[in-house]
C-alpha cells in the first residue's frame, strides 16, 4: 500500500481537487484506492456526495474506539472508497496528543487497512500541526500544489525544511504548479524560474480552468464528467508522473 498526501500549509491551492482527481484515476486503472478526507471543511467528502459524518468522530477513530473499516464509504466509482471528513476533525490534534505514539497514530490506523487498498490518498487540512506530522510519517509521497507566486516558493522551502528536520522515515516531496494562468507574466516567470535541482517538481502544470471549479457543482472528479477535457488530461499526466510503481 502506497500513501500519497496532498499537502500545503496554505489553503485554496488545489489540494482537494488533486486528491479527488488522482484518486479517481488510480481507481480507474484498477488500483484499490482509499481517499481519507482529513479536512474538517469536508470538501472531498462533499464532492463524492457522502455525508460528512464519522460515528464517534475523531475521538473514536484516533482512540481506536471504532475500527477504521466501520467508517469507510464506497463512492459511486469502482475501486474507490472514502473515509469521510467529520467536523470533529478540527480537534484531531488534541485527540492525537492523547495517544501513545502521537506522531505515528494515523499511520498505525492506515496499517489496519493495508491489505484492502493499493493506494491511499490523504487530503490534508492547511496547517502545520500534529495532524501534519502524522501525515509526514504515514506518507510515501507528499504532493504539494503550488500557485505560481513568489510566496508559494517560500512556503515550499519551509515545508521542505520541516520534512528534512522531522525524525524517522520521510516522504518524498513532489511539488507541482496548480491553478496556473499562462496569461499572467508572474505565473510564467515563477514556473520557469523554480529551481529544479532540489525538491522534485513535476513537469505537469495544472492550469486554472473553470471546469475544475465545476467539480463542486457536478460533485464528481473531472475525468468522470469531462474525460476529454484539458483539465482531465492534465490530471492524467500528473498521475503518470507520480503514480507509485
Amino acid at each position: 500500500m502506497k500513501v500519497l498526501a496532498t499537502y500545503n500549509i496554505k489553503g485554496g491551492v488545489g489540494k482537494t481537487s488533486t486528491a479527488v482527481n488522482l484518486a479517481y484515476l488510480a481507481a480507474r486503472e484498477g488500483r484499490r484506492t482509499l481517499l481519507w478526507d482529513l479536512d474538517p471543511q469536508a470538501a472531498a467528502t462533499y464532492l463524492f456526495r457522502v455525508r460528512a459524518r464519522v460515528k464517534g468522530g475523531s475521538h473514536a477513530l484516533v482512540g481506536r474506539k471504532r475500527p477504521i473499516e466501520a467508517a469507510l464509504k464506497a463512492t459511486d466509482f469502482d475501486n474507490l472508497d472514502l473515509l469521510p471528513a467529520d467536523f470533529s476533525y478540527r480537534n484531531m490534534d488534541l485527540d492525537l496528543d492523547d495517544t501513545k505514539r502521537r506522531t505515528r497514530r494515523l499511520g498505525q490506523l492506515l496499517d489496519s487497512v493495508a491489505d484492502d487498498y493499493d493506494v491511499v490518498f490523504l487530503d490534508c487540512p492547511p496547517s502545520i500541526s500534529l495532524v501534519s506530522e502524522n501525515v509526514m510519517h504515514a506518507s510515501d509521497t507528499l504532493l504539494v500544489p503550488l500557485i505560481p507566486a513568489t510566496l508559494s516558493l517560500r512556503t515550499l522551502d519551509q515545508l521542505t525544511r520541516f520534512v528534512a528536520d522531522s525524525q524517522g522515515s520521510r516522504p518524498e516531496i513532489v511539488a507541482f504548479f496548480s491553478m496556473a494562468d499562462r496569461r499572467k507574466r508572474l505565473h510564467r516567470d515563477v514556473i520557469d524560474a523554480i529551481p529544479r535541482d532540489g525538491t522534485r517538481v513535476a513537469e505537469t502544470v495544472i492550469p486554472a480552468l473553470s471546469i475544475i471549479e465545476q467539480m463542486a457543482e457536478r460533485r464528481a472528479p473531472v475525468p468522470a464528467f469531462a474525460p476529454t477535457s484539458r483539465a482531465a488530461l492534465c490530471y492524467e499526466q500528473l498521475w503518470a508522473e507520480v503514480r507509485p510503481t
Partner: protein
Amino acid sequence: MTSATRTLQAASDPRLGFGLGLELEAIVAALSTQYTVVTGPKQFVRRARLDTFDRRLREAGLTLEHQIVATGERLVLRGPGGASPVAVPVTGLHWPALAEVLPTGPVREAIAPVTGIRALTVASDERRRVRLLELHNEDGKTVVRVELDEPVSAAAAPAQVTVRALRGYDDQARRAGRLLDNLGFHGVEQGEDREPSSAAPTAGLDRAAPANLLLTRALSQFLATMRENLPGLLDDVDTEFLHDFRVAVRRTRATLKLARPALPEVMRSRWEPAFKGLGDTTTPVRDLDVYELDLPTMRGWLVAADPADLEPLATHLRRRRAVERRTLVRRLRSVSFERLVTRWEEELARLVDTPEADQEFQSAGQLADRSISRAYRRVAREGALIGADSPAGDLHRLRKRCKELRYALEVFAPLIDSAARRRAVADLKGLQDVLGRFQDSEVQRQALRGFAEEMMAAGTPAGAMLAMGELIGHLDAEQDRARREFDVAFARFARPSSLQMMHRLGGRR
C-alpha cells in the same frame, strides 16, 4: 459488502417475470418509493466466471468474472467479507491460462497465490442482457446498485435481480431488498457449476456392506477422476490434470492389489498389468513437468553459476516434453485406450454382482481390516530391513508400500476410526516426505546426467553443464540429508503406540 448482496428471482407473479424478461416498470416503481432510481441502458454482457478445475477460488471465497461488453472488457473480483469488488480493465485474455497472464495489480495479487500452478478455466459462460439501476439518496449519492439480469436464450439461467450493497451502505441494500421482496421476489442461491468429483468414494458405507460394493464404488470414482482430468490433460491446460490422472491410476492399481482376495482373478491377470501400462505411459511427461515446475527453485540453488546458465536446460526440457507429450496424447486418443476405458467400465458393472473370490472377505469391514493390516505389515517389514548400505531401490520400493498403505487408509476411511486414521496418516506422511525427497533427488540426479549427455551432444555451452553440475551436487546433498532423516522418521512410524494404533485400524484388538 457481500453480506448485504442478494440475488432474487421472480416468484409466480407474471407482472415481474414474463418469458425470459423482467418487468422493469414494476421494479422501478417499487424502488422509487424510497429512492431516486437512475435506469441505465440495457446492454449485452458476456460473463465468463473463472476458476481452477478444482475450484480453488470458490474454496477461498473469491469470485472472478471476465465481463465483455460493447465498450470493453474487464475482470471483476469479489472477495469474502466487507471488501468492495475490484474491477480492472483488460484486453486480449483467453482461457484457460495461468494467473500470470493477468495484468499486474490487485486482481493478480489476490488470485495468483490461490491458483498456484493451476490454470484459470471458464467455469460458466453466459450471455445476458443486463440493465443497471442506481438508487440515489437525497444527496444524489448512489447507495445501492440493482442489476436486472436476463438470459439471452431460454436454456440459460432464469432472469434475476441482484441487489449489490456498497461499502458503508449495507442498511440501504437491505431496505431495497425488502422493497423487492414485497413485490414478490424471493432470494435464490447462486447456481453451482459442474464440479470435479471429490467426495470420498466409499462415503455412507458401513462395515457390513458387501466388499464388492465398496470396491466398485472406489474404483468407479477413480475412473471418474481419470475421465474428468482427461480433457485438461489432452489440451495441456495445466500440469495438475496429468498429476491427478496419474494419482487416480495409482489408486486403482493399489486398490486392485490390496483387495486381491476379494476380487476375481481377471483383475490380477488382466487389469493390474493394464493400469500399470497406463501409468507407465504417463510417467515421462510427468517427470518433465516436475523439472519445469522445480526449475525456479533450482535456480535458487546455484552458488557459482548464474541462473541464466540454466536457460539451455529449460529449452531442452521444453523440447523433450513436447516430444513426450505428443506420444502421450496419441496413446490417450487411441482406440486401444478408449477400449480399455469402456471395458473397465463393463468390468466394474459386473464386479458389483460378482460373489467375492474369498468368502473370508465378504464384508467391507473385513476387507478394510485385512488390507490395512497387510499394507502396514509390508511397510513395517521392509522398513526394518533398510540399513546403512541399502541400495536406493530398496527405499524406492518402501515408498511404494507407503503409498499403498496411504491409499488403503483413504479408500476405507468411512469404515475406520477417524481420529486414529488421522494420526496414522500424520505418522505415515512424515515417513513419505523423507522417502519422497530421497527418491526425487535420486531420480532427478540420474535424469540430469542423461540430459547433460544429450545436451553436450547437441553442443550446449559449458556454462550450462557447470550449472547442472551444481544442481547435481545440491541433489546429492539433499539425498544424503533425507537418508540421514530416514531412521528417525521410520522409528517414529514404527514406535509402539503407532504400532498399536495400526493394529487397531487393521482390526486387531
